């Protein structure tokens, strides 16, 4: 993943020693957010790492695909880590956490069940912030070529001569 610190250069123990856990899925430290399994890590420039971790969880809760790893959701929202976008994102995530506290949770990331997080998102689905994130994900997530194989989609075919000899009519269960 582009802009990602090299996770191979950091053992899980080293990573954890430099970070705190954020929810069950993420660890955050000074200027970075990473998967709890240290499989990926991303430096943040304008957003607080906790904010980025929450944004990644929110992205998954909007478009949850269990076969799609967190790093693709991270890539889908990485573009908000800019000086121009940061203020709006920090405010949006702050509102999300406030809504979580209103329902008796410490913050959004600490909520264990997707159902309870989605309840909070449903309450704010008409907000400009929610629609900004959801709308951006439609291309940010699904237009990543790396996720296409996870859905079976084969993408470009011209360079391989199309499907005339590669199964355009190979259905066998009808």
């Amino acid at each position, binding site marked *: 993943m582009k802009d990602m610190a090299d996770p191979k250069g950091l053992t899980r123990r080293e990573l954890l020693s430099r970070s705190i856990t954020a929810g069950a899925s993420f660890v955050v430290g000074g200027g970075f957010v990473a998967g709890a399994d240290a499989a990926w890590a991303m430096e943040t420039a304008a957003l607080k790492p906790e904010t980025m971790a929450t944004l990644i969880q929110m992205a998954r809760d*909007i*478009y*949850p*695909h269990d*076969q799609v790893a967190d790093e693709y959701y991270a890539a889908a929202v990485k573009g908000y880590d800019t000086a121009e976008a940061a203020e709006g994102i920090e405010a949006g995530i702050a509102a999300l956490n406030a809504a979580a506290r209103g329902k008796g949770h410490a913050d959004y990331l600490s909520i264990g069940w997707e159902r309870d997080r*989605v309840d909070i998102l449903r309450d704010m*689905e008409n907000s400009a912030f929610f629609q900004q994130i*959801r709308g951006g994900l*439609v*291309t940010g*997530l*699904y*237009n990543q070529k790396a996720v*296409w194989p996870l*859905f*079976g*989609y*084969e*993408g*470009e*075919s*011209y*360079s391989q*001569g*199309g*499907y*005339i000899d*590669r*199964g*355009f*009519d*190979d*259905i066998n*269960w*009808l």
Partner: protein
Amino acid sequence: MAAPFDMNDDNVIVVIGTGAGGGVLANELAQRGVSVVALEAGGRYLPEDYVNDEWESFGQLAWLDPRTTSGDWRVAKDFSGLPAWIVKAVGGTTTHWAGASLRFQEHEWKAKTTYGEVQGANLLDWPIDGAEMAPWYDLAEKKLGVTRTHGMPGLPGNNNYKVFEAGAKKLGYEEVHTGRMAINSQDNDGRPACQQTGFCFQGCKWGAKWSAAYTDIPNGEATGNLEVREKAHVLRIEHGDDGKVNGVIYADADGNEHKQMARAVCVAGNSYESPRILLNSATSMYPDGLANSSGQVGRNYMRHMTGSVYGVFDKPVRMWRGTTMAGIIQDEARHDPSRGFVGGYELETLGLGLPFMAAFLDPGGWGREFTTALDSYENMAGMWIVGEDMPQETNRVTLNHDVKDQFGMPVANVHFDDHPNDIAMRNHAYKQGAAVYDAVGATRTFPTPPYPSTHNLGTNRMSENPRDGVVNSNGRTHDIDNLFVSDGSQFTTGAAENPTLTIVALAIRQAEHIAGEVSRGNL
């Protein structure tokens, strides 16, 4: 004088737009020895330039200049700034079209007579009919190499079609086949046969699908009678004191304005831009815009009753493989008011790639109801619904003076409300489409709302009586002798069929008329 032509050469006919209407007209006039300057707002892209990537291609080809929307149609909510999915390029939307090439049914030329009074609809009979159009349809089918006509074999069916066909037959449908398509099923016209690549909407990289971009346009240019000016964005048409049009003002790629003088002007900018140009050309002599004494310019906008049905199965389909529109069910295209609506609809297979499925399956949808559908993308089959919608005077293209384009011209606002007949027909089609998939074991089906419009029709409609429309039976404006409309905006009613073949047939017919008028000294 041979192309290129001088700006002051008022012997030329200016054609605005180079798609199914303008591109064909420009070539057909050039073939008849008439000098033509074709002004195209977009750039020139050929098969080697097309990309097998939905969003990248969209960025390359789509018309993305600002437009606004209003009305109760769902497109205005889901895609408020993008009412149409059409192309800004040499060849126009013939780069993007799927290739379905169907003749109107006989009764569809006479919608008012056949359907009677439909409350809220502004129905009218065309001033022409199937007998008049038959020879022009023959020429159009031969030009496009339409399968299942004139000896061109049908295309083979892909997986998406096989699911569709099996369901249709179980349901008892009889008129089910791989379509009449302007996609080569064998080498033809110097272009290869279909390689089942998919990505028909992104421009055919093989050139197997007919597009004006690499057929009529270069053929016309080869005569020496046609000059195509690309990135020439028309702002308005001008006229002289005699009331006749005398030239066209356009902005070039650098934004510099020019006036190309003209003997006659043919407008073919699609059903948004064509009325917009006429309205933006208002003067003290024509205060409501050119050719608008009837007040009908921009009115009676039609977009076909559309929608899609996707079905999920327990085994793979891989609908993206092969021809995007790979087959058709025509049993519902008949006029049979016992179904609760007038007119009819076609069901045609459609396959989208994952990126566009995410954008179009249920715009605005999220959560597991949405994502579990995409999780089954590989096991999904799809079809598109296309049916006749009712012309309504209040469905119209107007100028939005609050929003200007990059040249400072008011943009088109597109207002559309579904007619109750459109809604009844769509609901019927959703039910039948789902039944097709259920018949072969679908575990889930999706009644998907309309995409941004590709079939934009009717905003300069053809009428016998000048009071009822904008152009006569030759596409010549009732008001101004040397001003023509040459695209789908001249459609009196929309019929159930994909419109390109009819646009092409009308363009060939109009070329014969205009060339005749030139040689008779009437233009």
